Each structure stands twice: as structure tokens, then as C-alpha cells.
């Protein structure tokens, strides 16, 4: 009785096509937004910002990007880390070359660079499908990182080979660099995620998303009904890489401060892939929930044994964590292969009748 659409009449077509047609959904989203924008900043500590909240929001953005490509358009990609690296290095080059340009414009532009690179490496998807494509995208992963590591121009010939986010301000407030407060950083990534999720949600329920899903479900049939596979697949790679690129730029500028190519290695690609699998393929909400799960799990695993008074030596605890992490992933895939998003919709279904079954 808590989640039912009965009695909510729509008198206009545009109401019927609203992004959240059911009142309870609108309330839920409003509550989440209030929680994120008002309540969290009131209670969060420095540790929570740096270790949990900011990485969670950034990875959510990247996971949405990958989910658009893999979950909606059906193209498996293991090059996410590289596309994020393109965004990060592009924003670094742009803002060091043109310090006066607004940092937000830099982020968006670097996303465009990532989109271009993503489209280049997505081009083989026309010929190659499935796991062959997944392994082929690893070419992007290794080649791009090697390039950023070898060519000094990309990191401005700094002797350590790292890129460091220079301090930039926005309306008199430091937004990057060491002087920016955690709260400011949090709000920036939160705004990016809110806008990104909103745009993604609208993309996938519109024409573009429908063509993606048609290609995913059966590309030959989609081609026959008049969907151009070249345009559709490249658009999916482009938009997905745009999201990943912006997330990569945010990762360097807002979260890490400085990093080398190692931060974007293949483990990052797998991590984002885990997020969308655990969260649920083909679900924007699922990407965010999956990111939360994957970010929180290692933190929980590190902190839980000491909490119950169990002391594991540090060299062992790393392996134990690995084992538990792997086991939980396998367990989760067995229990609910469609991810947290499916659990969420099951819960909503239950709430229709609960607590009165008739």
C-alpha cells in the first residue's frame, strides 16, 4: 500500500511521459536529493568526504557511463580506465595550457576529448562482437596508458611522471588544489552526478536509448528496421566515454589531487565493470547503487575485523580481504545476477501490497 499507482490519474500526455510518473518516486527522489544536498554536508566528516563520499560520486558517474555502453547498448568494454585517463590528462593539459579558462568548461571539454578517443576505439565494434570486443578494448587500455607514460608532453615533462591538479577557483572559491575544502569538492561532484544521471536517464528513455537497446537485443534485426548500427554504436561509445572522461578529470582534480597512469590501470576498468554488474545492467539507479557497494565493501572489510576485536596482521589481511571480496562477488552473482536494481524493483513490487496482502 506504500507504493502503488492506483488513484493517480493523468489528464495530459506529457504527464504520462514524465520522468517519474508515480508520486512515490518523486517523493523518493526528492528525499534522496535533500539527503545528498542538505543533510550529508551537515554530518559528514573529513574522512567520510575523502574516503567514501567523493570517490563514490565520481565512480557513480563513471559507472553510469559504462552502463550506457554495456547495459543499454550491449557493447562490452574493458577500456574504461583508459577513457578516464584520457579525460584526466586532457583536463590537465588544457588547464595548464590555458589557466584562465573556467575549470568547469575544462572538465566538459576533456570529456569531449575522451568521447573522441572512445569513438576511435569503439569503431571495431562494428566488426567484432561479444568477448572478442571486450578483449579488443583492452588494446585501448594498454596502448593509451603506455602513451601517457612514455610521451612527456602529456605530463608536461614533470620528472616524476605524475600530473598534479593546479589550484583553480570559481567565483572566488577554490575548487581544486590543496586549498579547496572537502565540502566544496563534494558539492562539485554531486552537481556533476546529478546532472549526469538526469541526462542519462532522459537519454535512455528517449529515441537514442531505444535505438541502443534495439542494437543490444539483436543488432541485425535493429538494422533491418532502419537503425544505423554505425551511428548508434559510435554514439554509445562516444557518450559513454564522455561520462568516463569527465569522471576521470574529476578523479584527478577533485579527489586524488595528483596521480600517475597507474591510477587508471586495468583494475579500475574491472572495478567499474563490477559496479554495473553488481548494480544491475541497464539501470541508472543500479550504477549508483553498485558504485556505493563496491566503494563501501573494501572499507567495511578493512574496518570490520578490528571492530569485533579481531586482529589480523596487515600482510595477511590484504589477502583475506581479497578472498572475502571475491567470495562476495561470486555469491552475489549467484543470488541475484541482475543486480541491486532488480532487488530494488522486487522491493517496490512487494511494497504494493505489503502489509495487507489483499
Amino acid at each position, binding site marked *: 500500500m506504500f507504493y502503488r499507482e492506483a488513484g493517480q490519474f493523468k489528464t495530459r500526455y506529457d504527464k504520462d511521459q514524465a520522468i517519474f510518473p508515480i508520486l512515490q518516486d518523486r517523493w523518493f527522489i526528492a528525499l534522496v536529493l535533500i539527503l545528498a544536498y542538505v543533510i550529508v554536508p551537515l554530518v559528514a566528516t573529513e574522512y567520510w568526504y575523502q574516503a567514501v563520499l567523493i570517490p563514490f560520486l565520481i565512480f557513480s558517474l563513471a559507472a553510469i557511463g559504462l552502463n550506457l555502453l*554495456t547495459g543499454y547498448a550491449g557493447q*562490452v568494454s574493458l577500456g574504461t580506465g583508459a577513457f578516464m585517463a584520457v579525460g584526466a590528462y586532457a583536463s590537465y593539459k588544457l588547464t595548464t595550457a590555458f589557466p584562465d579558462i573556467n575549470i568547469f568548461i575544462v572538465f566538459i571539454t576533456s570529456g569531449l576529448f575522451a568521447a573522441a578517443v572512445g569513438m576511435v576505439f569503439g569503431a*571495431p565494434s562494428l*566488426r*567484432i*562482437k*561479444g*568477448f*572478442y570486443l*571486450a*578483449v*579488443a578494448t*583492452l*588494446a585501448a587500455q*594498454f*596502448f593509451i596508458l*603506455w602513451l601517457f*607514460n*612514455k*610521451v612527456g608532453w602529456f605530463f608536461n615533462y614533470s620528472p616524476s611522471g605524475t600530473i598534479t591538479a593546479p589550484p583553480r577557483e570559481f567565483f572566488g572559491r577554490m575548487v581544486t588544489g590543496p586549498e579547496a575544502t572537502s565540502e566544496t569538492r563534494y558539492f562539485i561532484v554531486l552537481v556533476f552526478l546529478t546532472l549526469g544521471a538526469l541526462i542519462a536517464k532522459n537519454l535512455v528513455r528517449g529515441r537514442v536509448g531505444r535505438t541502443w537497446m534495439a542494437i543490444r537485443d*539483436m543488432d*541485425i*534485426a535493429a538494422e*533491418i528496421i532502419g537503425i544505423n548500427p554505425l551511428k548508434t554504436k559510435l554514439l554509445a561509445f562516444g557518450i559513454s566515454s564522455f561520462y568516463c572522461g569527465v569522471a576521470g578529470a574529476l578523479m584527478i582534480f577533485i579527489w586524488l589531487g595528483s596521480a600517475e597512469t597507474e591510477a587508471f590501470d*586495468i583494475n579500475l576498468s*574491472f572495478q567499474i*565493470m*563490477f559496479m554495473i*554488474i553488481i548494480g544491475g*545492467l541497464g539501470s541508472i539507479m543500479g550504477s549508483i547503487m553498485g558504485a556505493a557497494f563496491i566503494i563501501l565493501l573494501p572499507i567495511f572489510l578493512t574496518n570490520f575485523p578490528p571492530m569485533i576485536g579481531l586482529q589480523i596482521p596487515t*600482510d*595477511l589481511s590484504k*589477502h*583475506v*580481504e*581479497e*578472498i572475502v*571480496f*571475491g*567470495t*562476495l*562477488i*561470486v555469491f552475489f*552473482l*549467484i543470488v541475484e*545476477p541482475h543486480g541491486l536494481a532488480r532487488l530494488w524493483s522486487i522491493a517496490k513490487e512487494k511494497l504494493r501490497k505489503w502489509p495487507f496482502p489483499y
Partner: protein
Amino acid sequence: METLIMIAEVMFTAPIADMIDSPVFLAEVIISGLLTGVMYSLVALGFVLIFKASGVFNFAQGAMVLFAALALVGFLEQGVPVPVAILGAVVIMAALAYAIEYLMLRHLVNQEGIILFMATIGLNFILEGSGQLAWGSNVKGLDIGLPDTSFEWYGILLNTFDLSAAVIAASLVAMLAVFFQYTNVGRALRAVADDHQAALSVGIPLKTIWVIVWTVAGIVALVAGVMWGSKSGVSFSLSLIALKALPVLILGGFTSIPGAIIGGLVIGVGEKIAEIYWGPAFGGAIEDWFAYVLALAFLMFRPQGLFGEKIIERV
């Protein structure tokens, strides 16, 4: 214009001139590439076996190599004689195969490929963690008594260890071929690889077959682990050779055993030649991605790999 000529010089003229100048060195490069390729093939073989029989893209193959090598080293450190230690490692890999089937695969039947793939990445974490937890994470030497001396043959420098590795790999492949071709189990395996449902309907026990296939893949992993381990020591980095085997896999085709072998040799030779003749022009360390780009280029012309089954799509 001048830079263009310079680039052409560095990229094309100079390497080829180098090759023609000293054919002996070129032969050495090719042979050492072939021998590395054999090692790649061994790892790729494990992937192909499992993919053919169960449709699982087993990312944990690299971790299985590490696990098998660690188990073997663990036995040897206890002072167990080499043949017994190898037998013990085989038993451990068989037990592992059974556990994987019982705890993981049987619950994931009929899931999409990508879910199975992610599950094997989870398995990868479990194997890496538990292997290092049980046998320690420091680099260990592995010596099973293969001779390791260099000698010259028509002016080409060769190494007995590499040669014996190649012989062992060749005999392993021959044994596998015989096993697949002439035994009842092998026939059943081929039937399962061809068509799961048809195999089930003529009474082939699918679950047993999977255990056998994973055991065979475990034994292949053990051989690969012994070879790589005696060459460069047994440590965590052993599980990363899975990443080296992936381009071999797509080059040869996911479903073809000869493909895995020839793909391994092509990648091994190509990588060595590229590193030695073109590496300086790129600033070195191109081994990391060269194999992938090579495989990608091949795929553009043959999307199913060199020897993969032709992909037939129906609406």
C-alpha cells in the same frame, strides 16, 4: 617533408636493414619469440578448453597458473620429491575444479556470458588471495631439475631450458589431442563443446564433464606455472600472464586449440621482433600493448579469430 623522411627511415628502412644485415641475430630473435610464444600458448590453451566445454570465459586462468605453481612450490619446500609434488599439485587442481563446479558453476547455469565472466574475476580474487595466504607472497624459486645451459647451433645461441619447455608443451598438446580424439571422456567432451543440449539428451553428464574440463585446464595451468615459474620465479606477477594470453586467444579464436597454439607463436614472434626492431623508435616497452594491437588488426579482417568457428547470425 624532412621529418616525414626521417620517420619513414626510423619506422621502415632502418629496422629492415638491421634484419638483413645480421640474419643470425634475426633467427635468434625469431626462435626466442617462438619459445615465448609456446608459453603464451600454454596459458591460452587453458582458456580455450574451458570456453569450448562450458562457454565460460575464464579470467581466473592466470590465477590458476599462480595457484598451481604455488602449490607445487609448497610441496617442494616440504622436501617432497619432484614427481610426488607434481602429483600432489595435480590432486589439488582437481579438487579445486570440483569445488569450482560444486560451489560456483552449477549455480550459474544459463546465465549470460558476461555474468559468468565477472564471476570468474571474483574467482580470480579468491585464488590469488588464498594461494598467497596459504603459501606466502614472496618470490620463490622453482627448480624441478630441467637443465639450463646455453649452446650454439649453426651460430645461433640456444638454451636447453627453453627447448625442453617447448618439447614438454608439444607433448602436452599431443597428449591432449589423443585424449580428446580417442578416449570416451574425450569424445564426451567434444560432444559437450559442440552442443550442450544435444550432449545432455544422449546422456552425457554435463556436471562431470565440467569438473573434468576444469581439471584438465588446471593441469595445463600447472604446466604453464612450472615453465614460467622456473624461468622467472613464482610470485604474484605470474597471474598477470593471463593478460598476455588474451590477445593470443582472440587472435587464434576462442574455440580453437590449434588457434591457441598458432596464435601464441605468432604473438610471441611478433612481439619480440617489434620490441627489438621497432621498440627504440617508440621509446621502448611496447610489449605491453603490441600483442593487443596486432590481435585487433587481425580481428578487423577475421572477426572470429584465425581459427574460430565462423560466426553465423540469424534473426
